[in-house]
């Protein structure tokens, strides 16, 4: 069974491109447009990894990840944050919330794929 990766970003084009890249690498993809949308789509199914933006409307990435980490089913799901925030304390906040890695936007898809391959166990 192929691995399911959730991508949370308010930019549809980013989701599309990342989606193409992920599917090309053999992953299944679940898309959500913001934190709230993403939470509503996490319904207990096995998600192998979450890629989330930080700056989003409705619910930002930090709040989203904080909540994900409180859900028993997703407590141990690794999270990669996508951001341009260079602010250390924000980064720290994201890590504290449970993010495992950071990919700084703008990025090219292979960089993200590389990060994902390190976190998704075979």
């Amino acid at each position, binding site marked *: 069974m192929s691995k399911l990766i959730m991508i949370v970003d*308010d*930019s*549809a*084009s*980013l989701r*599309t*491109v*990342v989606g*193409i*890249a992920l599917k*090309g690498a053999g992953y299944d993809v679940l898309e959500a447009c913001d934190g709230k949308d993403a939470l509503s789509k996490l319904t207990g199914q096995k998600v192998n990894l979450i890629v989330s*933006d930080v*700056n989003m*409307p*409705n619910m930002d990435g930090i709040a989203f990840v904080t909540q994900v980490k409180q859900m028993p089913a997703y407590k141990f799901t690794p999270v990669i944050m*996508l951001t*341009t925030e260079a602010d*250390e*304390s924000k980064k*720290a*906040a994201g*890590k*504290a*919330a449970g993010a495992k890695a950071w990919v700084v*936007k*703008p*990025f*090219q*898809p292979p960089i993200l794929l590389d990060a994902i391959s390190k976190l998704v166990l075979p």
Partner: protein
Amino acid sequence: MSEYDSALPAFLDEAHELLAAMESILMDVQGQQPDSEQLNAMFRAMHTIKGSSGLFGLDAIVRFTHEAENVLDALRAGELSFDDELNTLLLRCHDHVKAMLQELDHPDVLASMAAPPLIDELKAYFRQQTSGDISPLAASATEAPAAAEQSWLISLRFGREVLADGMDPLSFVRYLAESGELGGLQTISTQLPGGDAFDPEQCYLRFELVYHSAMPLAKLNDVFEFVRESSQIHIFPLATAGRYLATVTQGQDEAEQQAVAAAWQQLGVVIEAEAEVVTEAAAVEAVAPLASNLQFAQAAKQASGAVARKTEHKETKTTETRFIKVEASKLDNLINLIGELVIAGAAANLIARRSGQSAQIESTATIATLIEQIRAGTLSMRMVQIGEIFSRFPRVVRDVSKELGKSIELHISGAETELDKSMVEKLGDPLMHIVRNAIDHGIESVETRLAAGKSATGNVWLNAYHESGSIVIEVADDGGGLRKDKIVAKAVANGLISADAMLSDNEIYKLIFEPGFSTAEQISNISGRGVGMDVVKRGLEALRGTIDIDSAVGEGTNFRIRLPLTLAIIDGFLVQIGKSTFVIPLEVVVECIEVPDDLKSDGTHSHLNLRGEVLPVLNLSEFLELGEPPGKRQNVVVVNYGESKAGLLVDNLLGEFQTVIKPLGQLFSHLRAISGSTILGSGEVALILDVPALIEFAKQKEVADFAGQTEQGRAQLH
């Protein structure tokens, strides 16, 4: 990147949406400070475009948007204040990004656009705003917080695992230093083990610090939001901190307690004796900061309640815009198919009726009803709000009025009125010309306005509404109005009319739509080249629309554009004249009456007394030169368009018919009275009558006859 090209249209759509949102915010605020939601939205626009551009390897856009994003970020952080100049700069950034998006196919052009002079202007503005002491805004920015600055004692005892959790304790201290002043910092290392017991991945240090800042306690608490659970964080007002020494050292060994006490003394905290000795009392005292924390918690709850309400508000907004994007060509294809279905349905209906079997007639009738519903539903998918066009005008008005040095306010109403998507695209240019014209020629200069006793600010109104199957769009201004004498003089000079022509007001006004016509003495950058208004006329004619003008000298002008609601399928009314069948659009039909006895007929033209109202009546058989004898029982179809009414004399009324409009070829484009054709159930072709043109013709004929009669009368007199 080629494998991602399929996502490019989505990127473009999204970027344009974001840019439109940014523009509308910039237009809304008009130099006023935007609220944080608006700032966030603008920041996110640049941020998202930058992020997505990076995915497609569009480095030029990344570089430019990065600069714009920096400025917006500074704005968001309160480092910059918003003013009219920045408003204009940001609008230009918006324009530039938009221009870059249009050059995606030309990488070299795009690359050259990465660092326009605009960037230097942005940077210059940034420098001027953030560093210069001269700037009163910068001065007040540093003064304001000084008034509310408070001193705190912060005790940070991080959890051992804080480093393993990916956090740098020092980053919090550095973060604090950014928005306030560190009055002193003591590091307590009593817990640091020696030798083998030391684990480099653990945090053994404790920090006690004095902090001066205007940051409210709630926000200060937030700084440590993510370490709160694993650490012991205490924040007290510096003045009363001495009471809580026991609280912060509770449960720790003596060495640490003493070290903390020493640190506090170093930091200038006056430790109150009883608290140091009596731990029970301290526990009671500890309730105080807890209570205060509780208060803050409540305040925070209220605040988050307000945020929740805001997000709720936002959610209703997003549900409104929860659309599925469909390629326009797919929808066009569907509508074509439904057109064919309508025709095929009509054929089936006809066959059923000929067969005379009631069961078959009934089932085809049911199908016909369903087809009608599908048709209505599909056509409504193509309907979009006219606000889509209107929304670009605030910007146009702002730019053009600035260029001309006029002060103009734009009022928009009826933006939610719907019309066919294909029309929206073609309506943009004609409307733009009319609005520019209204600003340029209509609204007078400030001096002229003041001299005429008007307000210095001119007004332009854009309004849209539905009226009897048409959509009406009005562009009005309170400017100088159209000068009939000037128009006539100019038209005569240009040879458009003869010097002794007798024209109605409306006819005079319509002269401005003739090619090569312009009355403005001074040719400006905006209009006045005489190409604008005839483009308007041609553009509207292509949409089967008409334009009327009302004007009063000194009071203003009102352009009223009338367009059919849809261009694809309409409800028609089928009539028979001789052996031919014609379609009259149902929306213009008012009533049908039998030919009254008192109808005075003289060839193609006659008139009718309709309950006291005199109506010109056009004999279609004569008018269309069908050359067939009139039927035995003729009928008059009363039609209405705008403010004009007329009767059309036909032989038979065949009833309602869903009409799929098929355009006529080039060969028939000169025909005035026919607007299109359709296919009947029998496979025959029926022509669709152009009612506005017919009414116009009936009226002209009447005027001409009347003139002829008076001539005759005069001849008889002499």
